[in-house]
């Protein structure tokens, strides 16, 4: 699971062009939106594409993303559950 979390942080930084953010600066429980990383609605769509492209997971209902993308912890838990 910790490898997946590390991988998610690296992918988020690269794919969302978070130029001034390092992996070490993202805590597993940090909120990804709002006061945390400050991601926006377009970033949310990019994360949905990332789930599909890199993990083969399609979100049938984009509203699901609200819970899944809360933090690195929730994303990793969701991906692990889907892959199990």
């Amino acid at each position, binding site marked *: 699971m910790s490898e997946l979390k590390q991988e998610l942080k690296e992918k988020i930084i690269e794919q*969302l062009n978070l130029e001034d953010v390092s992996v070490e600066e993202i805590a597993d429980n940090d909120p990804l939106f709002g006061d945390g990383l400050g991601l926006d609605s377009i970033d949310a769509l990019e994360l949905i*594409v990332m789930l599909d492209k890199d993990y083969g997971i399609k979100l049938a209902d984009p509203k699901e993303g609200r819970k899944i993308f809360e933090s690195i912890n929730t994303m990793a838990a969701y991906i692990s559950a889907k892959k199990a």
Partner: protein
Amino acid sequence: MKNDYYIESYSHVKNGEISVNGKIVFKTLETEFKPVMKAAYKKLVVDYPKFFKMDNLSKLGFLAAEVLLKNESDKDMAMVFSNRASSLDTDRGYQSSIKDSTQYYPSPAVFVYTLANICMGEISIRHQIHSENCFFVMDEFSSETLSYYTNQLLDENKAKKVLCAWVDVDNGKYNAFLYVVSKKGTFVHSNAEINRLYKTTNE
């Protein structure tokens, strides 16, 4: 052309140099677009991470506007922009992400920049400009087109000032020339003067 309007100030971004009113404010030996923009951001822009999410056209226009509007307080400013390649530079990248039906992963973050006028939107957000705007796509820089439209806006009191631009990115080549027109300024708002200022780094 009426001569009761003036060019307050102007900026250029080209060949690794950024200048305001002819004075160089940034220079790098880098030649590739991406490292030039990144280095210029690091030197000239204070904490605006959204810059790195922008497409190349928006980055170019954003930096040229950043140095030009640094001390501008009047937000009643229209925008008249122009270029040759429209958003082709970004369009090609987006097209390549959807051309293979077995690897069809269109990027929403790229798609939102597949219009040239998004560049004006980014500048408007940064400088809180709420006004008329227009983006012309034409074969080459045309002072006539820009000045005609600008005079019309000012004559009809649509705005106190107009931010005019040629901002073009295509295949690694980039060129931005921005200038502010109002009732006060250093240079007469004439086609001859606009062309002279444009050519100061484009000869």
